[in-house]
């Protein structure tokens, strides 16, 4: 059974998934960070495949992409790192990235090789769902790897149902309009969107992402979804890191602890 499915079978609430860019801040930190995250109590990791032109990302993730590419990060190297991660790390692992590097690698070969290396899922935000269904879905199933689709407040209900039907493992709810790393507090737009998803009675669990940066927004998202994904806030921490292990431990601990209610 796919590790993502196992996780949601075991626990349906407060899932914490952490996104970070492969090859950042140092080329081989991809592996170290995964180990520290598991030790600190994260439930799942999403590792970003660096790309020169990340159109859905804000400045923090853009910077990490540039630095990773300058460090010499490639998709091939990332698959080697995933193998290394899998020597010790048991939590679900997804690879997330823009389509072009994957196209150059070969989409079908990538599905197979990623699964073989130990990845459980893939998120390719600019892969059209229609093309996935037509060309690649069978291959993904054969490889035993989930492809996770994004839904947004601007997706029509019908569209959300289509994306849910194609998505494996969970559905990624981009709960606000904007690129990554631009908001810090949970807004009513996000609240309403997650409520709308609940009403649609989808087949997949829902993780909320974009704009989740602290324990307050994490817990707000968890009230209406199965969990949340933290990205830019974590990468900001890595930008200024001096002691990865201690800082990652502190970050996850803070995120998990309940926020102090206002006025106290």
């Amino acid at each position: 059974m796919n590790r993502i499915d196992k996780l949601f079978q075991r626990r349906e609430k407060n899932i914490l998934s952490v996104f970070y860019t492969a090859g950042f801040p140092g080329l081989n930190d991809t592996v170290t960070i995964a180990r520290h995250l598991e030790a600190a109590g994260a439930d799942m990791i999403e590792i970003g495949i660096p790309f020169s032109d990340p159109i859905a990302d804000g400045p923090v993730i853009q910077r990490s992409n540039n630095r990773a590419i300058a460090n010499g990060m490639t998709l091939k190297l990332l698959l080697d790192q995933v193998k290394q991660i899998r020597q010790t790390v048991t939590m679900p692992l997804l690879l997330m990235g823009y389509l072009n590097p994957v196209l150059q690698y070969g989409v079908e070969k990538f599905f197979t090789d990623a699964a073989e290396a130990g990845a459980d899922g893939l998120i390719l935000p600019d892969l059209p769902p229609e093309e996935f269904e037509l060309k690649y879905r069978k291959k993904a199933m054969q490889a035993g790897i989930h492809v996770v689709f994004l839904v947004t407040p601007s997706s029509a209900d019908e569209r959300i149902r289509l994306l849910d039907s194609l998505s494996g493992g969970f559905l990624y709810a981009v709960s606000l309009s904007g690129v990554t790393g631009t908001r810090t507090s949970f807004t009513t737009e996000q609240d309403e969107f997650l409520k709308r998803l609940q009403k649609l009675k989808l087949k997949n669990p829902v993780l909320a992402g974009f704009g989740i940066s602290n324990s307050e927004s994490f817990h707000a998202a968890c009230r209406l979804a199965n969990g949340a994904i933290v990205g830019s806030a974590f990468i900001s921490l890595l930008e200024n890191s001096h002691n990865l292990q201690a800082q990652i431990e502190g970050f996850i601990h803070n995120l998990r602890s309940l926020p102090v209610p206002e006025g106290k």
Partner: protein
Amino acid sequence: MTYKISEGGFYGEYGGAYIPEMLWRNIEELRTRYMDIIQDESFQRRFYSLLKDFAGRPTPLYFASRLSAQYGARIYLKREDLCHTGAHKINNTIGQILLAQKLGKTRIIAETGAGQHGVATATVCALMGMPCTVYMGKTDVERQQPNVARMKLLGAEVIPVTSGNATLKDATNEALRHWIAHPLDTHYIIGSVVGPHPFPDMVARFQSVISAEIRQQLTEKEGNPYPDYVVACVGGGSNAAGAFYHFLDDEHVQLIGVEAAGKGLQSGHAAATLALGKPGVLHGCKTLVMQTADGQITEPYSVSAGLDYPGVGPLHAHLFATGRAKFMSATDEEALRAGLEVSRTEGIIPALETAHAFAILPKLNLSKDDVVVINLSGRGDKDLQAYNQLI
């Protein structure tokens, strides 16, 4: 063989809409509505009346007698440089702002390289009283100062983009990011036949007025609508798409696109995407893309800011794959010399982008009955600094 866009938004294997879900609603709205809107009679009337009275169309098809004598052929210049704002770009911005109004959008964003598209967008926004934000790479802001000043004078906000290499590709990224964050009230007027479907087809249709006029004007001057050659420079490919459009099915008309070879095609400093690129996805469309083996987009180079783009419109990728059009290239130096030559033999200073089209004339082996139409896509006032090195 068809050169028209398919139902699904592809030219052969190129095109499509490879966009993150955050842009889906905007693109879907455009995709489902653009044809109905632009084929509507009142839209057409409005569009052509603005092309005529505001942009100054039809632009002349000028018989260039001295160039013709020099190259031993019948050379005509399609004078897009005489359009209001000095380039073909205004054909597209008039079309798109009318469309944006039909969609109920209240703000306009655009990217620009040379600044010509930025000026053309700022101009129509002033005309319609709509706020306008133009993203421009910081490098381009510095090398195209006169156009930056024009945009500001027209009331547009110009945002210098510092990400990446701070040129056209990065300005396009930034415009897309802004659109993702402002999906409801904003229309993105993309400046060439690039981006997710339906932009490439929509922009080609707005620019196709160029070849519609060429056919009519050649019929008057030569007795038939068919030239032997149509030559245009190719950055994203909008002026070439416009000049080729109504000749695509006339296979005896040779279509020639000219890309920028920068410091030399194999020098590592070029912007000739069709010659150097591989299939990939950039800015929401599958096309030929200049990239590393690992799929990172590489930074192109050309002396001309308007040709400095690592992708190319999917129509041109298809014309290249099928052999319907032939693509050549010209170096910085060849283009600058050709621009100087046209200035002195015809009294017309072409934009540096356009100068690339003229630079391949010596390589065509023309004979005296050949009819050649060169799309003179813009005027060179913005490029005086570059030309100055030669005089």
